[in-house]
């Protein structure tokens, strides 16, 4: 490859590259704006609960093998013992 050719390829790469990055990120700016408007208008979330509620449900979903089960089991055992004592 001749040296000039390499340099021209470099120039080309720069032009295409810069344009591609700018175009891509511009589209992303548009998409974000659009999505934010759609979400805030049609699917709003109560500002307060947003930080807490999902975390709680997720925790529940995950701790299914631990916390919830243990809690219910404890309740069940307690119940049984109560009954035996009273019975």
């Amino acid at each position, binding site marked *: 490859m001749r*040296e*000039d050719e*390499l*340099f021209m*390829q*470099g*120039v080309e*790469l*720069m032009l*295409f*590259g*810069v344009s*591609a*990055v*700018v*175009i*891509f*990120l*511009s*589209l*992303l*700016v548009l*998409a*974000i*704006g659009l*999505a*934010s408007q759609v*979400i*805030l208008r049609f*699917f*709003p*979330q109560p*500002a307060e609960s*947003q*930080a807490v509620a*999902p*975390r709680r*449900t*997720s*925790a529940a*979903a*995950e701790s299914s093998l631990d916390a919830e089960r243990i809690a219910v089991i404890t309740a069940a055992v307690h119940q049984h013992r109560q009954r035996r004592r009273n019975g």
Partner: protein
Amino acid sequence: MSNLLRLWDSTGLAHFQPGQVVMILIGLCLLFLAIRKQFEPLLLVPIGFGGVLANIPGAGLAYSAAENALHSADPAVLAEMARLLGQSVASDAEALLQALGLAAAPVQQAAASAAEAAGFSDGMLHTFYTVAIASGVAPLVIFMGVGAMTDFGPLLANPRTLFLGAAAQFGIFATVLGAVGLSTLGLMDFSLADAAAIGIIGGADGPTAIYVASLLAPDLLGPIAVAAYSYMALVPLIQPPIMRALTTQAEREIVMTQLREVSQREKIVFPLMLLILVALLLPAAAPLLGMFCFGNLMKECGVVKRLSDAAQNALINITTIFLGLSVGSKLVADKFLDIETLGIMLLGVVAFAIGTASGVLIAKLMNRFGSHPLNPLIGSAGVSAVPMAARVSNRLGLEANPSNYLLMHAMGPNVAGVIGSAVAAGVMISLVGV
């Protein structure tokens, strides 16, 4: 007596070459910078240590079984390898190593089998490199972890800052031009693929640089990774003079309006939107940005905390250890001590400087034409180097106006810079890759 000779021959002293001494000193120097000066220690400690290991004479930790066979200088082995590589039996190890590098896949496999049959094996670091980097997996896994640690809130609150992340990538492409320029002038010998890989240093994003280098210029991976992480650590030194030179005191004092709160739903939708944009426009960036978006989705969706924690902790830490050692394997003297390495170090700092300047200048332009005030100091954060560059912006803002906290505003361009350089990487790979 023969055992005594064998023992002496098995010491490092009998085989030390000057290049190896130099490289071990460079490795120790990287460790010093990482430990004492806290230059990106999470990567530079393993890289520096790997560099020392790679240059232990006679251990061959960074070489494949076939390369170790050729380094052994055992005449019978050399003759057999020469036969397999189709070279004259009189060829020396040097020539055979070159022939091996150029050989087709089946020939390389045959050479590897012959070497293993003769009792040679892949060096430890070579194994790590093959598994972690040559497969492309380690940088992608780290990118997933980074995604799981990134908060896009500031970016979503002020999406215009994405333009700053785009502007700072100009450093990448200017550096590509610089690299081919050096080749055109005959000073260096970089191919277009080499130039593209070197340019990515300007992206100021370690895993992206390593990923691109492993695809486009594996031979230059060592210096590229070292340059990328070193300059990222040097951001607090490189950026401020440029930022001061290009802004006025009045501009630096600009107070930006507080960012709105971003809802969880917007944060969940963002990685999916970015992924779809990648799918539509730039499939070559799909591995990098796909894993990044996956990590971020795991973090934001809130229902897979176990997985998100694993991606942010055990997985990224384990991968970082092996990625660092693997990069170290590319610091062997015969590959690193080259005039090209100097060129890469030089071009790298230029890339950072140009990226910083472009970010600041575009920020000034946006401030002039936009409706909301925009402090140009946050433009420099667009190079990424998360979160160092954003902190530099914050520091210079406080210098100019002691109550002007820019950190949160600078996080927008900062994470935009990560996306920007991954996009640039995708463009490089699709235009230059085979």
